[in-house]
């Protein structure tokens, strides 16, 4: 197995936000405040912490690079959430293309039987059932039941309408209940 550093994008430290705040300080503060929550969100979507951290790092680097275009720094968090969702989708696409000859297997997701990090069979069963749902359903459930966001903010992060969020969540819960019943 070989490993190599991923590409790290940097921006000049003197860059400022549209409101004049220094970019690096602003991004640092955002990282301190929200990184854990976003990594946890990404973990629910991609299944392992390592990949989740990568996704979140990329999202922050994207924020740092795009700060000049961000007129309202209050929108940085929604931007990060949307970036994390996009990053997680990219991970899924990449995984679907990974050659069977890849040198290293992906780490077991938190919902797998091999992952001992989640205490309790019921939790693992629920997470496994969620993992069997469509991608958008998983995203909506994570935003609604982990981040406890209102439908409007979920819609903004996922770039869908509020009604789509509502209907997707309803269908996802029904499917989830059915899957759990089947498991029993």
């Amino acid at each position: 197995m070989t490993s190599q550093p991923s590409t790290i994008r940097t921006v000049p430290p003197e860059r400022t936000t549209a409101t004049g705040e220094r970019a690096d300080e602003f991004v640092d503060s955002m990282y301190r405040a929200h990184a854990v929550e976003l990594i946890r969100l990404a973990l629910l979507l991609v299944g392992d912490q390592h990949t989740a951290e990568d996704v979140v790092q990329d999202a922050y680097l994207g924020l740092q690079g795009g700060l000049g275009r961000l007129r309202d720094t209050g929108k940085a968090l929604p931007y990060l959430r949307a970036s994390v969702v996009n990053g997680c989708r990219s991970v899924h696409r990449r995984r679907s293309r990974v050659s069977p000859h890849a040198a290293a297997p992906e780490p077991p997701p938190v919902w797998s039987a091999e992952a001992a990090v989640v205490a309790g069979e019921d939790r693992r069963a629920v997470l496994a059932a969620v993992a069997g749902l469509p991608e958008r359903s998983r995203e909506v459930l994570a935003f609604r039941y982990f981040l406890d966001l209102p439908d409007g903010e979920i819609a903004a992060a996922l770039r869908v309408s509020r009604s789509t969020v509502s209907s997707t969540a309803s269908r996802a819960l029904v499917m989830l209940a059915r899957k759990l019943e089947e498991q029993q």
Partner: protein
Amino acid sequence: MNDIETRLRDAYRGATDTVRPEAIRGLGEHATVISPSARWWTRGALHRLMVPLTAAAAVLVVGVVAAVVVPNALRDARSEARNATAPLAGNPATHFLLGLADSTANYLSVRSAITGAAVATLAPPAGKFFGAAATGDGVSYVVAVAKAGTCGTWLYRFTISRTGQPSRLTPYWTSYESESIEDLAISRNGRTLAFSALTCARGPGGVHLVAGRAELGLLSTKVTSKASYTTTVTYSPVPRGEVVNSLSLTADGRQLEFSTDLTARSPSDIYVVSTKEAESGHDMGGRVLLNAARFGASAAISDSVMTPDGSTVYLTSYQTGRAFNARWALRAVDVATGRSRLITEKPGYGVHIVASPSARQLIAFVQAAPPRPPTPVATPSPSPWPPSPSGSPSPVPSTVPSSSPAPTPWPSGSPSPVPTVSPSSAEPTPSRSPTPVPSVSPSSSPSPVPSQTPTTSPSATAAATLDAAIQPFDVIRIQLPGGAIRYLNPVPWDVGGFFYSW
């Protein structure tokens, strides 16, 4: 369902608690990635690469075609034009334009847009004569037709084939307007038509033009089925009584652009108007995009045209009065910002431009004879539109005061030094010289059009024609937006005898 939600929250909490804040990487810390197998070129990988590789190859081919083949083809076409051997067949929008026989307006001549050679002719309905013509796509034309002794205008349409042959005239959606239409513009789909017109009114001896009552009009047609349609007609007075020079519509018909002439009473402006707002009752003089005074206190706009996408207006301007310098300029104005840029400036004093339907090509007809020294101008400066001098008998703002005998091409009373807008003793010229009242004088008009006719469209057209007495002319093809210029052989164009529209 609540049970499911509770279990879901609990599972999420259990999973996410495994992410400990103290254990996560700092921002920007290098991560490691698993590199793919060294055997990435396995059969499956190659198969997956085929799609992007094929797409890249297709993009490359398109790029080569766009960068090499098309320019070569265009260069070949231009070369053909240089040699005056261009084929007299092809896309009508780029190959043909219309010339209106100036002296009598009794036929239209389809001309090669490349060489100016006549390809075909089209006669008006019996007893009528042609006026303004317009096309949105270069294939379907609408033409205004007037009749001696009346004041209204008939609208017909026809098409031009790939060989330049016109079809028969058929009535437009609205076949008659009770106004004297001076100029036309039409959208690409042919369903929005804008016109400038002089109003008609019933008076002693019949229907006459109302002096100075110029209007802008919009005809919008909605086709509801094969056999039914509705047409909305909207009129609006020309802002501030200005004299409309030229009209153009965007491809979708949503934006109307028109320019106004510099007169003793009104400035030379370019307006951009939303046709939707105009149809809902708004005045058509809502937005002045540009005032010619930007180019000099006595500058005037002679022609203008808006690109089909509504992004740019091209205009020609010249200096009048003491600032007259026997030069004309072609400029582009960004409709969004109002900023203008100079494309080219050339010697000449009297320019009329026609633009291809795509507005990527202009043909400019320019008087090339050396100018007289600047003449004293009676119109007071510096204001380009002061109140009319008391010597003008016409209540109408005029570029060429009707009282002027105009023995020379430079009537001293005119704020415009451009002589071509009004053949001095010939019939008056409503579109350029909005003095329709004198035009009813029978003795003044050599035209076959009876005197009481408004000398409307045909005379308007004739007015726009450059005076044949002061040849020679330059005929210049200008590529847009860059402004590359090519001088064409003026002889086939017979500029003195025809007024062109494209």
